[in-house]
């Protein structure tokens, strides 16, 4: 049952990641950061996490790298939303799409090198990295919700303004998804789930449904935007 649900989740994220990456190719530069950020969720977390039959799943480097890529994902998309907000205030938009791809690739490569030149990741170290990742997701989701609200106000009567309401929904789902995972990790609920079964069940349900709804809302929002922007 758990396997089936993770495969379903993986399929949804595969679709969402594909749509967002495709979206990043054909639109304005600022959209590239946002779309690449969402695409990195697929690469960093869902593939090693949701497809247990993939080779190398148990490799500590791959698993740790997955968390690092997840952290980079939220940073890149937050940067994209910040740029979009700056654009709505100053109407200035600079830079090239290729720079975004190159910079993201460079950061990923640097992280991998950092990981490889240090001692092999232990499960404890991986947990710390995951907590750092989820902390970033939780707090940046809240910040992004506020930022996107401001963007929506600035472009309220434009053709794509409703897409930003969609992104608010996306980050609410992500907040639930990552927040519940952070809660489980911080309190070690997966270890002491027998003592707190209800809390664990609620957290687990929030984590799963948050991830599912996030993938659906990401895919839906990018599809909606793609329809409006093409």
């Amino acid at each position, binding site marked *: 049952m758990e396997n089936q649900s993770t495969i379903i989740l993986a399929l949804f994220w595969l679709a969402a990641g594909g749509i967002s990456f495709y979206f990043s190719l054909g*639109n304005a530069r*600022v959209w590239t950061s946002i779309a690449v950020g969402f695409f990195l969720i697929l690469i960093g977390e869902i593939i090693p996490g949701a497809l247990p039959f993939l080779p190398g799943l148990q490799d500590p480097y791959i698993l740790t790298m997955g968390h690092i890529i997840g952290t980079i994902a939220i940073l890149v998309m937050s940067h994209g939303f910040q740029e979009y907000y700056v*654009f709505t205030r100053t*109407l200035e*938009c600079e830079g090239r799409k290729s720079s975004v791809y190159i910079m993201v690739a460079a950061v990923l490569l640097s992280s991998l090198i950092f990981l490889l030149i240090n001692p092999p990741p232990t499960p404890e170290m991986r947990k710390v990295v995951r907590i750092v990742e989820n902390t970033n997701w939780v707090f940046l989701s809240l910040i992004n919700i506020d930022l996107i609200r401001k963007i929506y106000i*600035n472009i309220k009567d*434009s*053709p794509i303004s409703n897409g930003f309401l969609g992104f608010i929904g996306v980050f609410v789902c992500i907040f639930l998804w990552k927040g519940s995972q952070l809660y489980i990790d911080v309190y070690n609920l997966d270890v002491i789930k027998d003592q707190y079964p209800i809390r664990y069940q609620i957290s687990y349900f929030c984590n799963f449904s948050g991830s599912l709804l996030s993938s659906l809302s990401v895919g839906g929002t990018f599809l909606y935007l793609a329809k*409006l*922007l093409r």
Partner: protein
Amino acid sequence: MILLPRGIPVKEKIDPGRINLPDALRKLRSGTFTGYLRFDATQLTGIIIFEQGRLISALCEEKGSRLTAYDAIARIFSASLAGGTNLDLFRLSSDLALSIHALLHGHLLYSGQEIKLIDIKSLLAQMKEDKLSGCLRIYTQEHIALIFYRAGDPLGFFHDGSTDLETTADTSLSVARLPGAKIDVLSTTADEEQILVDLMESADITKLWNSEVEKIASLRLQNEEAEQRSQVSMEKERRKKILQIFGTVAEAQLGKIGASLVEKEFEKIPVVDEEKLELFYASIAKSAKLVAGASRIEQMLDEMRRNARTLLNPR
């Protein structure tokens, strides 16, 4: 309009604005020229008379006002420099040049009388009785003849192509017989016939000319500045109008951010023309991609192009 018969044409249809008039007048002086220069502009006629190389008379009539001597020369210079003036040069005999001088400075007793309504015999009798010195000017649209009198007795006739006073009245009579012929009666005084100062000797006409050159240059500069100001004002008005229309179009397609984008990108084009507007369209299309799809942007640009074409090429 100063009505004078043409003497023997020396030069005709010269643009006096293209020559240095003081130099030309000096050449006439050194060549002991006798005759007159006629300057015709739209609302101005100027006459300069030479007698044996002396500039004895200058007259300029414009919109009912009459200038003489240096004032006339200055006005003739300024009209020549302003352009659109025609200069004809006619040779005359000394007597005729003096007679014309006297005539131009004489008094108009009767003007524009229809010959067929006048009792010529009575008029001539009256002139004889009054011992009138002066001239009868008989003219139609195309021809002019002058009959000079001294103390009531006829001196001679002057008509187109004459260089000297003629004794036969044939041409003058033929002018009088033409339909619509009119007659002016002008009187001169003995004093006026005697005033024969060489105006070129008593004043520096080059200075007069240079002064007019400066005035004209200053006037042209003022006109150019005024034109520039007017162009700037027109350009401002046109910019304002185009900006307003573009803002409305962009707001309809992209919302308020569209109008703001238009304002921002429009500031970057200093002059509104087709070429600069293409740069504007490219910039606005690039920014608009962040808030709208390609078809909507294309629709917006089409509408802007249509409106701009109408405003830039109103006909």
